[in-house]
């Protein structure tokens, strides 16, 4: 069997990973259609992609990439240094529509040395640069095919785009001219099933072979018990947090935030909302990262203490606030539980269910919220705490200084130490309520092999997938 049907929850709006944030785009195209100079592996490591190798100047500002020879785009044109320059220039341009423009902000120039060599000069050294280039937003595209990239993506990957039935599915075919090893699959169909019930039904009825990020954790025991299926439980980069508006009264008082933190029973949330899947976290950092520090004890569940803290902050009878919940079930269900837990200590949180668009508009951009629950899925994103204008509005000069030091530090041990300090700082400032690391819950037919267990980035890497005969 050489074809597979993979279901995912959200349909990509279009197929250009370099001009939108939608993770669904990456899920379909990342490493399958488009490749970058470097790429993520399933365990989170960064390995060479279209760049065979690279050299970094001693001051850490000049990267010279050696490209693979004989790589062609699906339309037959060759991939060379010009394409790399085009791709990076396009991402950094004034009118760039790249959703992660910040990743490329440090690039000063991109120069073509010869058809297979590119030199990138940075404004200042950046320990994360190779990591950044592995993002889906940094894939290499060709000027010849850029015009229709959104509906007809042309990349260098092992699969070519075949068909898109909007609202239903996208089909990819094996690329016979692929530069690397030929994948086991001939065709792959991505089906979009947003409704958790439909997801369960489709899986049970064996309409689909794999469900990437299965949306209903409550159904996993049934799949576990069924020999027809396998369940893959891994971790994502998603720190699920009770985001708090640090500039809004009464959350501008650290005592109130601390009270909040002690009022939350993480385990109840993980059990109630995620049916036990998820790792409790005490700060904004992924537990699987070597630099992680377990700070959950810092905000242990203790409603009595929470009440006392509230009283100390001048709110002995609690207060009223809003709790904006975006659509995913971790937020909607988790929100119901949190609202109930907050009610125990006298805080009346009005639940406001919002669609993503509204969430972006009123919470993220407008900052009109008290509390919200969201999973921050970008990898290594503790840096957002250094941005005072970021929606939860944490403004700490100590933290900002810490980040600056971190950015210019290349020594790994020192970096680990600094990261630990950063984690502690936000945890003791109780910036947000830290709930759990979002689990990656995959369900697949028993014979499917090579699926990513974890999700360092949103990707469904088809090249490794095969059927167990």
């Amino acid at each position, binding site marked *: 069997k050489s074809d597979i049907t993979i279901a995912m929850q959200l*349909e990509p*709006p*279009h197929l250009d990973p370099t001009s*939108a*944030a*939608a993770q669904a785009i990456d899920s379909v195209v990342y490493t399958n259609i488009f490749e970058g100079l470097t790429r993520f592996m399933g365990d989170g490591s960064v390995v060479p992609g279209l760049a065979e190798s690279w050299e970094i100047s001693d001051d850490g500002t000049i990267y010279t990439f050696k490209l693979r020879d004989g790589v062609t785009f699906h339309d037959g044109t060759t991939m060379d240094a010009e394409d790399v320059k085009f791709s990076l220039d396009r991402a950094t341009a*004034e*009118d*760039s*529509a*790249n*959703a*992660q*423009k*910040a990743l490329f902000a440090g690039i000063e120039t991109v120069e073509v040395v010869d058809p297979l060599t590119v030199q990138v000069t940075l404004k200042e050294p950046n320990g994360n640069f190779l990591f950044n280039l592995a993002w889906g937003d940094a894939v290499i595209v060709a000027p010849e095919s850029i015009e229709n990239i*959104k*509906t007809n993506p042309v990349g260098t990957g092992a699969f070519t785009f075949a068909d898109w*039935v*909007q*609202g*239903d599915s996208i089909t990819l075919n094996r690329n016979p001219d692929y530069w690397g090893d030929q994948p086991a699959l001939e065709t792959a169909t991505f*089906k*979009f*099933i*947003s*409704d958790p*019930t*439909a997801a*369960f*039904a*489709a899986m*049970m*009825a064996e*309409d689909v072979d794999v469900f990437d990020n299965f949306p209903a954790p409550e159904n996993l025991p049934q799949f576990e018990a069924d020999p027809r299926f396998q369940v893959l439980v891994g971790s994502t980069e998603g720190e699920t947090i009770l985001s708090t508006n640090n500039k809004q009264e009464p959350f501008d008082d650290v005592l109130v935030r601390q009270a909040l933190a002690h009022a939350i029973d993480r385990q109840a949330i993980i059990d109630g909302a995620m049916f036990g899947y998820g790792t409790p976290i005490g700060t904004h950092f992924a537990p699987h990262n070597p630099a992680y520090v377990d700070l959950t004890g810092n905000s242990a569940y203790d409603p009595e203490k929470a009440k006392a803290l509230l009283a100390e902050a001048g709110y002995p009878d609690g207060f009223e606030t809003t709790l904006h919940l975006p*659509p995913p079930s971790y937020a909607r269900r988790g929100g119901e539980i949190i609202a109930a837990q907050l009610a125990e200590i006298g805080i009346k949180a009005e639940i406001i269910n919002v*669609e*993503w*668009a*509204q969430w*972006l*508009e*009123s919470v*993220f*951009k407008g900052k009109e919220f008290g509390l919200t629950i969201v999973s921050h899925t*970008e990898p290594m994103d503790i840096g957002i705490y250094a941005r005072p204008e970021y*929606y939860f509005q944490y403004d700490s000069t100590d933290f900002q200084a810490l980040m600056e030091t971190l950015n210019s530090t290349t020594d790994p041990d020192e970096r680990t130490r600094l990261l630990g300090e950063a984690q502690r700082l936000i945890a003791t400032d109780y910036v947000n309520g830290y709930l759990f690391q979002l689990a990656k819950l995959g369900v697949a037919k028993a014979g499917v092999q090579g699926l990513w267990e974890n999700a360092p980035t949103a990707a469904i890497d088809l090249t490794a997938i095969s059927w167990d005969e």
Partner: protein
Amino acid sequence: MLRYALKRLLSLILSLAVASVVIFAVIEIAPGDPASFMLGVNAQADTLAALRAELGLDVSKVERYFNWVGGMLVGDFGTSYTYRTPVSQMITDRLWVSLPLALYALTLSTLIAFPAGIYAAARRGKPGDLAVMGATQLGIAVPNFWFAMMLVLIFAINLRWFNAGGFAGWENGFWTGLHSLTLPAIALALPQAAILARVMRSALLDILAEDFMRTARAKGLSRRQALWRHGVRNALIPVLTIIGLQFSFLLAGSIIIEQVFYLPGLGRLVFQAISARDLIVVESVVMLLVFAVIMVNFLVDLAYAAVDPRLRSRT
């Protein structure tokens, strides 16, 4: 007749014009910016502005309204903000699911309702009538999404006779396509059939009480002959109204059912588009649905004339 049709046509156009203003106005006050939705949480201000310009969101609302209406008049529904494909193309694709589904459901509901309604009317007050009426009462009371859930549970998950959802596509053959629309069509059809059967029955009962039915019996027609030859056609008039209403309902009202069966139909398109703030798609689909309803009503009116000669000669 012609004048009647023309007059209706004029009020039809006026209605559409008013509808377009209402739709545009309602949707434009919706909060949420499509551009920021597309670019996500880390987008920067200049990137956003660039995208807004590209989407044509930077001109005045009035200008946008006229661009939209003007485009629709020549068949150009604009380009979807999120999918970046022509809206007309998306609508056409979705119609290939929604329209057959609506017709399928309507056919089923008619096939169930007519015999049931006629049977009940012919047996008024007898156990058969009571049974049919009881069943229709139940049919009306059952929320169709709940019914759909139960259908999936029984026929897709347990019995595995049908797919749990999704649409196989017409290119895989007519029967395959029809097969994948069967459960949704049943879920949609049964409550509608219940309503239709009741309307059919009461319309027939009204007709049965008419003098001309007695005349027919006096000619020597049996009860059954009189019912079929004189009753059914006259009863069609109220029934047609309901069928017209149901068709428009099925076209748009299947949102939830399409959700349950994850069918790529029009209903789900609007639902997704509303969540994604794809205003132009929402506007265009709602406009199309309003157009469909108004057209269907118009056609039903013309169909009346076909059924009822009294309306044909009325100017």
